[in-house]
């Protein structure tokens, strides 16, 4: 917790408000919140099926699949950004086909969302997979004998049971998306209001105005703490003792 104290001790409180309410800061914060939320939703959309496959099926390539899902965790974000460029960029693997469809991702907010989703997805998948595994499948088996088809079991038993795991996965993904820097910079660029998220803004401010950078960092921290706190408050009270 010391590092936080250290940051706080460096904040120039006299100018704090003016520092964080500058046009560019507000734009960056707004963009960050928007894109992080969209990315979190995308992580849920893609991550829930992945987690289910990893936790509930058993096939030869599964170990490899799990490792690949973890990839963005270990890839330094900048390398991740390069990989994304090679994939979705104009000359990338998919880029040409996307261009034919008239979709242009480069330097757009879409690219920011892709970068954030890419780095945040493993967090959701892993938290959720762990939760699904430790929930076991006894309740699912019971539900099946009560006549519930797999879709119903998923919706009414599996997901509610692993809700705490899903929520903490979402919190983690959101936090990771909010803090994402390297991949965004490399893949999406940095233009105010379009692709320059709060971490990019902080990085840039640091060059000329370290006070502003510190103040913005603190804003980022506060936002993250709020999100995490709220998410944990919304959790349903858990099981019981013996």
């Amino acid at each position: 917790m010391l590092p936080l104290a250290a940051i706080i001790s460096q904040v120039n409180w006299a100018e704090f408000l003016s520092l964080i309410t500058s046009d560019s800061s507000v734009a960056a914060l707004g963009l960050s919140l928007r894109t992080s939320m969209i990315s979190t939703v995308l992580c849920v959309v893609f991550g829930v099926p992945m987690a289910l496959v990893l936790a509930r099926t058993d096939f030869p390539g599964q170990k490899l699949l799990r490792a690949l899902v973890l990839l963005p965790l270990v890839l330094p974000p900048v390398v991740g950004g390069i990989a994304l460029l090679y994939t979705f960029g104009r000359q990338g693997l998919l880029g040409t086909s996307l261009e034919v469809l008239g979709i242009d991702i480069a330097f757009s907010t879409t690219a920011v969302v892709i970068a954030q989703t890419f780095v945040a997805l493993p967090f959701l998948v892993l938290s959720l997979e762990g939760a699904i595994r430790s929930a076991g499948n006894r309740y699912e088996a019971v539900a099946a004998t009560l006549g519930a088809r797999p879709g119903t079991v998923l919706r009414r038993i599996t997901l509610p049971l692993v809700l705490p795991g899903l929520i903490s996965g979402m919190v983690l993904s959101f936090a990771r998306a909010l803090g994402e820097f390297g991949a965004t910079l490399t893949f999406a660029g940095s233009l105010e209001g379009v692709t320059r998220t709060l971490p990019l803004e902080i990085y840039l401010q640091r060059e000329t105005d370290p006070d502003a950078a510190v103040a913005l960092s603190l804003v980022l921290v506060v936002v993250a703490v709020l999100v995490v706190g709220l998410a944990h408050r919304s959790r349903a009270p858990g099981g019981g003792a013996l």
Partner: protein
Amino acid sequence: MSLVADVQVASRGLHVQLTVERGETVAILGPNGAGKSTLLAVLAGLLRPDGGSATLGDTVLFGDRVWLPPYDRGVSLLAQEPLLFPHLSVLDNVAFGPRSRGEGRAAARAEALRWLQEVEAEEFADRRPSELSGGQAQRVAVARALATHPQLLLLDEPMAALDIAVTPAMRRTLRRVLTGRSAIIVTHNVLDALMLADRTIIVQAGEVVEMGSTREVLERPRSAFGAGLAGLNLVIGTSVGGGLVTVEGLRLSALAEQPLPEGQEAAAVFSPRAVSVFVEAPSGSPRNVVPVTVSDLDQRGELVSVRAGHLSADITAAAAADLDLVPGMRVFFVVKSTEIALYAR
């Protein structure tokens, strides 16, 4: 729906064939680890068998390269543990089956409430499962299994955790709902089998050792376990003129119910109440006299059960005191021939 099943699970040494007629209730009894729960798990679709096949009515549950998933079987299983869904209220647990069948929320809840009333648990409708006592949870689980209207209902020890005050009520409820419904009930309680089942199967070490109408199995047990269930003494041997002889050479004279050719495997059954206990071998009219060593004494009300190996005698407490019986003592068990039922195994 009638069930015809041949269930094989090699790793648990299970190989059982059984049928359940349309509307019939079959009780399965047997020692711990005999494979009763395994059998139910296979029928419910929770465990894949190594071989065999099963059909319920016209539906193949499993067989040659066929394996129907649990939710398509119309088979409802009440497992040995209640396993109530922890995130749903008691009412919603019971409403789960009806809702999965496609009923609306209100209709499903109304039906759930009816079933909760049946098992005398409607007062817990709004609770979470974690707030129930063991027996309360068990009753809710019974309601949940019944609410699905299954083609075949499988009940694994449904009364194990129930108190003596609700047991009769639950037994009556089950008798009502099992009437005209195909069901299998696993139990350790003879009374359950007698009152709920049309037929009883005894499974031991993965195999069926007895099968027949419940009354028949209890009155004419052919297995040691069956005899123990019925509280009867069973002696197995080979028929000889006017009785039977065991491999250890013990000879019992008895009247065969039906003419019994010599040399056939036979069972002699008699009630512990028909056994007298003597400290010295009695002389007199020809009777069955078996020298035994007392292994155990159990007082039950005014009677004392004197156990010696797998035989037992029920005598009055006064007689036991007179004889000064203690475990380890050598005594003689005496039974009149007319008290012994002899039949082919």
